């Protein structure tokens, strides 16, 4: 099992290394963002998925990492003790220290309280930052330059990409190795039953703070990489939507698998980049996707992939194929219907359209241009499109469920004796 995982992992790393040769410059920039988001999500998942503590304020540690790195870039000018490639270390150290301080407070309580305290701490930082001009640069923020070091210029995105890739791979490896250490195993114990850990004689509060601080440290590294990438920092980084994004991404990816959050963050960042020119409602789609995942697929995308793997072993690929195709088609149709409705509504309620309508009062509603066609908002045909898409999609969902039940029933005879035994016991 372990050895089989190495092959896709090696292929993935090789692909990441070869990426700049295959992609255009702007896509490399997007890839840098994806890598940073993936590391941030994995750092977050150490607290959230592994230790079972929901943090709603992780932007704070990401943000201080960025600010610390920008300050370090200005202080060292890429020379001396901290040359440019090692700059994220500044983010790591400051992230760790902030994490210890914030973690000491936040982990006084567990569960719901913890979530609220982390949120409040992040808001405290966000409210305070614009007033501390010396540290956070006020409203304008602070900026720095990437200085050449080690014979590299760091002028092109490709060089930055390799630097970020090296840091992200190293950090992910360290995070993974951490889960194998005794402290890493105890972290899982915190999630499962901290009461029991206390009875076993462990100092639970100290353990909580340790885990929180390590997570904050890696978030700080991700923030430092962000500073290297954008060469600037603004207090907007501390805003709550950054914290919200990491929660959404991690759960969409799946917090039960180590690389799940990285997968979710990379995918969502990529989609955010790809559709940001096309729609203003990207955050709405992200929120809807998150709620759907929480309601119907609590283990996230990674959990879904794993489930497909198990089902394939149990029923065979050929038997599974019609069901997966039907499910995929249903998803596509439902998505298309939803996107159509949201985009149409967005354009209908936009200020431009309202102003137009007010200007030509009495002329009726003007058609809305969408997907290369003009749609009349008052026409039945316009609204029949999403309704039709939804209806067919819903029918396909039914069909998928029926196919799945049929598959299970076919597999049933083999399992029945054990099931009966189980119920008899």
């Amino acid at each position, binding site marked *: 099992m372990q050895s089989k995982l190495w092959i896709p992992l090696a292929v993935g790393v090789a692909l990441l290394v070869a990426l700049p040769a295959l992609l255009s410059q702007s896509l490399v920039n997007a890839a840098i963002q994806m890598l940073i988001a993936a590391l941030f999500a994995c750092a977050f998942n150490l607290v959230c998925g592994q230790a079972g503590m929901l943090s709603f304020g992780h932007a704070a540690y990401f943000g201080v990492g960025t600010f610390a790195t920008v300050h370090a870039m200005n202080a060292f000018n890429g020379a001396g003790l901290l040359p440019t490639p090692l700059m994220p270390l500044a983010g790591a150290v400051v992230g760790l220290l902030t994490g210890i301080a914030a973690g000491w407070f936040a982990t006084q*309580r567990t569960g719901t*309280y913890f979530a609220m*305290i982390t949120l409040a701490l992040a808001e405290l930082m966000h409210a305070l930052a614009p007033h501390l001009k010396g540290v956070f640069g006020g409203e304008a923020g602070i900026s720095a330059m990437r200085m050449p070091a080690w014979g590299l210029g760091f002028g092109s995105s490709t060089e930055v990409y390799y630097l970020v890739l090296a840091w992200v791979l190293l950090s992910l490896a360290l995070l993974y190795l951490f889960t194998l250490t005794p402290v890493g195993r105890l972290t899982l114990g915190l999630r499962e039953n901290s009461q029991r850990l206390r009875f076993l004689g462990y100092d639970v509060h100290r353990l909580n703070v340790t885990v929180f601080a390590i997570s904050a440290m890696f978030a700080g590294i991700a923030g430092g990489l962000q500073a290297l990438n954008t060469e600037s920092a603004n207090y907007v980084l501390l805003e709550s939507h950054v914290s919200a994004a990491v929660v959404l991404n991690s759960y969409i990816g799946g917090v039960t698998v180590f690389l799940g959050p990285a997968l979710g963050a990379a995918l969502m960042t990529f989609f955010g980049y790809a559709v940001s020119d096309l729609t203003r409602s990207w955050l709405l789609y992200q929120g809807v996707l998150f709620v759907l995942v929480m309601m119907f697929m609590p283990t996230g995308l990674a959990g879904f992939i794993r489930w497909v793997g198990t089902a394939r072993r149990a029923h065979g690929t050929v038997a599974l194929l019609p069901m997966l195709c039907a499910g995929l088609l249903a998803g596509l149709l439902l998505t298309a219907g939803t996107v159509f409705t949201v985009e149409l509504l967005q354009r209908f309620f936009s200020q431009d359209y309202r102003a137009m309508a007010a200007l030509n009062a009495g002329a009726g509603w003007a058609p809305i241009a969408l997907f290369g066609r003009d749609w009349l908002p008052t026409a039945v045909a316009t609204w029949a499109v999403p309704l039709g898409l939804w209806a067919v999609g819903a029918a396909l969902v039914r069909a998928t469920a029926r196919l799945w039940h049929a598959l299970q029933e076919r597999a049933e005879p083999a399992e029945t004796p054990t099931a009966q035994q189980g119920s008899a016991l």
Partner: protein
Amino acid sequence: MENLIVSLLNGVIYGLLLFMVSAGLTLIFGMMGVLNFAHASFYMLGAYFAYALQGSLGFWGALLASPILVGLVGVVVEKYFLRRVHHHGHAHELLLTFGLSFIIAELIKLFFGNFPVDYRIPASMDFALFRLGDANYPAYRILMGSVAVVMFILVYLLLTRTRVGIVVRSAIYKPRMAEALGHNVPLVFMGVFGVGAALAGLAGAVAGAFYTTNPNMALELGVMVFVVVVVGGLGSMGGAMLASLLIGVITSLSVGVDYSLADILAWFGARAWAEQVGGLLTLKLSSISATIPFALMLLILMVRPSGLMGEKS
């Protein structure tokens, strides 16, 4: 002196407003163990519904209709969303409401735009009730405070003096026993969730007209409400009341205080040093008044982690 009284009055009324939202939150938490992240979104929905309806129903009609609509939204959230994920545990429910709050904020932006809308108090209420020194005191503030007080009294009487109240309290205290005695506990949960949401909606409809109505109002108030319930103690109505008033008064008073840490250090002859260090030490209290509730919360967590009136954890 007059300034102090005006500040105090403003603080108390802001505190009552906070209580209107945090009461529902803490009631729902005490009953279902769910921290409803979307609760402040109900507050925002109340303001926007009232804004959208005031054209057809008039201000007062909208003020009545909006909480009812928000209550219905709350019922839908409980019945079709929260109940479905109940078996996954409380963290899952918290995350779901977090996602819902996200969606509500984005939907508001979609329909009303990402900017403040023109929701204001009616001309009939826009007058000064009395004068304090050289300041006119707006009647609408008093109305906001009265609505909160009346609501509090009604909820209190409902919970303590009626049969419905007894069933609700027993469902909070021992849900399984109440169910075994033949009460429809899921219905009670749904009802309390809806009423809590409606209260937040009422607060939004009343306060949105006085303060600004924008897509960020849920987040701004939501964080403050969380601070209130941590300071007061989760699940405690009395604690929520006390903490709301405390935080309302403190934020209101601190806006008028022009001192900084450097002024305190000056008593020890360290003013020059403090001004040299700058940063946090020379910030005036008035400019960082928004951060004081958070500082208060950290202080409470240090000395009394279960909150002012919370039970021992």
